[in-house]
């Protein structure tokens, strides 16, 4: 074990990270460049074994934050460590330590049957055959992949595909799972399957889970801790109880909506 890993007490350690995009606007002669801060400044520490949900209105910067955490985007400012590594510099090494699912896209190969996609994933992550067989059997059973293992990924329904994606992200047994809207577009039953699977994963294997969602059901069912992001900054970070306590009379949805509106009212 290297010292790097020894010092990695937190799974995610973000201090003041932000990301600007320069966008050009207007037609050719009058084109002007403008800097859009997608993420202004986010402090976030996630300890091993936690499940943390990021909430926030559309365009708040949740996905951009997840992309920085996974090394896809390099932060414009701030310091960031994930699983002991600086993501944008050590992206490939980091990829071996974490699992990532973007609900809007797939990490599987469209034209391959699910089984082949998972087999390919095993090779790319260099999972030893015996370990793979064990995990593959376990995951296919828990996520009920059996009936569509030989179906090409492009023919899977959204819920089936999402379960396949989760399996692919977990075959190499990552300690941290990053999920961007894992329950988007799923029916009640699929959502319930995925939520209980994630809860079990966290409980039995101690996998740290960081997810973004618009579904408060995910939060209530899964998380102790909620981070509300609004316009690129953290508007709330704390327990679900703390969130409820902000307005004891009303339900959780009203409280969150109030947080979004508070943010909008700030200068």
């Amino acid at each position, binding site marked *: *074990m290297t010292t790097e*890993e020894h010092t*990695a007490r937190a799974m995610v350690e973000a201090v003041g990270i932000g990301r600007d*995009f320069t966008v050009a606007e207007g037609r050719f002669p009058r084109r002007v460049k403008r800097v859009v801060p997608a993420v202004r400044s986010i402090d976030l520490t996630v300890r091993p074994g936690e499940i943390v949900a990021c909430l926030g209105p559309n365009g708040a910067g949740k*996905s*951009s934050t997840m*992309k920085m955490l*996974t*090394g*896809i*985007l*390099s932060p414009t400012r701030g310091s960031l460590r994930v*699983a*002991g590594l600086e993501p944008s510099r050590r*992206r*490939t*090494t980091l*990829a*071996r*330590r*974490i699992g*990532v699912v*973007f609900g*809007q*896209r*797939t*990490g599987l190969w469209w*034209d*391959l049957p699910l089984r*082949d996609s998972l087999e*390919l994933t095993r*090779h*790319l*992550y*260099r*999972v*030893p055959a015996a370990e793979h067989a064990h995990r593959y059997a376990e995951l296919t059973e828990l996520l009920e992949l059996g009936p569509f293992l030989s179906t090409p990924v492009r023919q899977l329904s959204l819920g089936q595909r999402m379960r396949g994606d989760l399996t692919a992200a977990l075959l190499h*047994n990552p*300690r941290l799972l990053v999920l961007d809207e894992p329950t988007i577009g799923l029916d009640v039953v699929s959502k319930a399957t995925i939520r209980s699977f994630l809860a079990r994963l966290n409980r039995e294997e101690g996998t740290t889970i960081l997810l973004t969602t618009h579904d408060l059901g995910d939060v209530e069912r899964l998380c102790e801790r909620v981070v509300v992001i609004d316009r690129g900054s953290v508007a709330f970070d704390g327990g679900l109880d703390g969130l409820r306590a902000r307005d004891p009379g009303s339900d959780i949805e009203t409280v969150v909506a109030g947080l979004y509106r508070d943010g909008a009212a700030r200068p």
Partner: protein
Amino acid sequence: MADPIAPRRVPHLVPRPVQDYARLAWTWTRTAFQYPAGLALMTTGVVLSVVAEFGAVLVVFWRAGELAGFSMAEGMVVYGLAAAAFGTADLLMGNVERLGERIRSGELDTMLVRPVSPLVQMATDDFSPRRLGKILPALGILAAGLWWAAPEWTAGKALVFAVLMVSGVVICASVWLVGACLQFFVADAREAANSVTYGGQALTEYPLAVYGQGIVRAVTFTVPLAFVSWQPVLYVLDRPDPTGLPDALRFAGPAVAVLAAAVAALAWRTGLRHYRSTGS
């Protein structure tokens, strides 16, 4: 598990990217063979396009007898070498030209979170043996041209020629990759890049002397494609350079290849660093 966070270390002799390349290419090849009719049809299409191109070269030589002092046999060598190098580069790296699509669809994001070079993933995605439909006929034309032109062979010459051929493939692949990397910066750069690569290919298919000195000099020094076919042909046929460039240039292929590959690697790294994903 003792140390779940530690990366697994598998001892290997073959570099990891090469292993990954082989694994991905093999998976796609197997998939392609699952639809043999489609594969056969597409391969036929590729073969026909080579036949058509080569037909055009033949017609030109047949009408002119010889071009700028080059016989038809020598023309076949020039064409065969260019087409084989382009075909091989296309087989190995051709898919990188779809970078823009990958960026727009968000596929590049998914490639970036896998522990495999995104360049390898991009190059192998949809890897298809149909491209052999270009390489094999081109090699046939090259062999026939060499047999007909009958230069004097020595073991050393054969070796140098092989090195020049490999350099040609590396040069083509590098030019291709640089063109593709433009798509990191410009949304619709694919057209621009294609004019470099495909336009360049048409240029290399005729003896360069046909185009006149000015263009030849420009091409030799700006677009390094002359080292793909023209200079190796001068070498293998023992020809003085009709445009008056120094003979030593014909050995510059490997150096040009290394330089082109370095430029391509730099373009790729710079592109990735500037990559901004998409908004959704």
